[in-house]
């Protein structure tokens, strides 16, 4: 495997430190997670726990440094109707997503999420 070692990346006009590129990348993601807690693709996820209808907890293999990371999330592309995906109960080692209809009750909808922030 070859390794590129550089402290900056430049297009000839703008130069940024490679640390911005590395630190700005998603640290984990899970794509199209269904109600049975199965993802179609993922990275840095050790398990998904089906904790109830529409409710899943996703655990990191490499934890985040604290619980103040950012999770970008939304309903999956094969949801059959508009759905809310809510983030809650996030800790350094895991986070939880809950799918619901707009009235608030639990619903079945696949979720997508990507995690940004500092790793442990």
């Amino acid at each position, binding site marked *: 495997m070859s390794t590129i070692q550089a402290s900056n990346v430049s297009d000839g006009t703008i130069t940024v430190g490679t640390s911005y590129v590395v630190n700005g990348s998603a640290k984990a993601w899970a794509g199209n997670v269904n109600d049975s807690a199965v993802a179609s693709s993922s990275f840095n*996820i050790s*398990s998904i726990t*089906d904790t109830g209808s529409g409710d899943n907890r996703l655990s990191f293999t490499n934890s985040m440094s604290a619980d103040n990371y950012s999770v970008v999330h939304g309903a999956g592309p094969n949801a059959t109707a508009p759905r809310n995906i809510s983030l809650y109960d996030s800790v350094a080692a895991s986070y939880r997503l809950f799918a619901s209809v707009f009235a608030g009750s639990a619903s079945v909808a696949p979720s997508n999420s990507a995690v940004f922030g500092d790793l442990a």
Partner: protein
Amino acid sequence: MIPHLWDRLAEAKSRLEPVQSKYRVLFEDPREPDAPAKVLVPDPNWMACALAGGVLPPIETYQRDRLVPDGERKEHPYAEPIDAMTEEEAIEYLVQKDIDPAVWRDYQGNRTILKIVPVELIPSDRSFRNAWRVVQ
């Protein structure tokens, strides 16, 4: 120098085929007596790393890191990776990593609250999902 765990995971994802586990972990949390049974599903990329070896840290590092306050240096990303596990060993590792010790270590009641079961034993009909309990 040992590469960071996240770097090892990225390298492993480019090299290893995901492995779908044939097991699920069914458990109840004694701190939530009214909550339905939970089902832990191993991630296929994680399982591939566990079976291949040389990627994941020792389980003891995660257990010690539970006591480390947020923001302070954790041990598991920097630990020497362990050798390959069997699928059964990997499931036991995952139970200790992703399920609270109140379930798998500290519970002293009479109910069976944790079972490792084949995928086929998890009901496919989810009509009454929030009423699921571990069969005694």
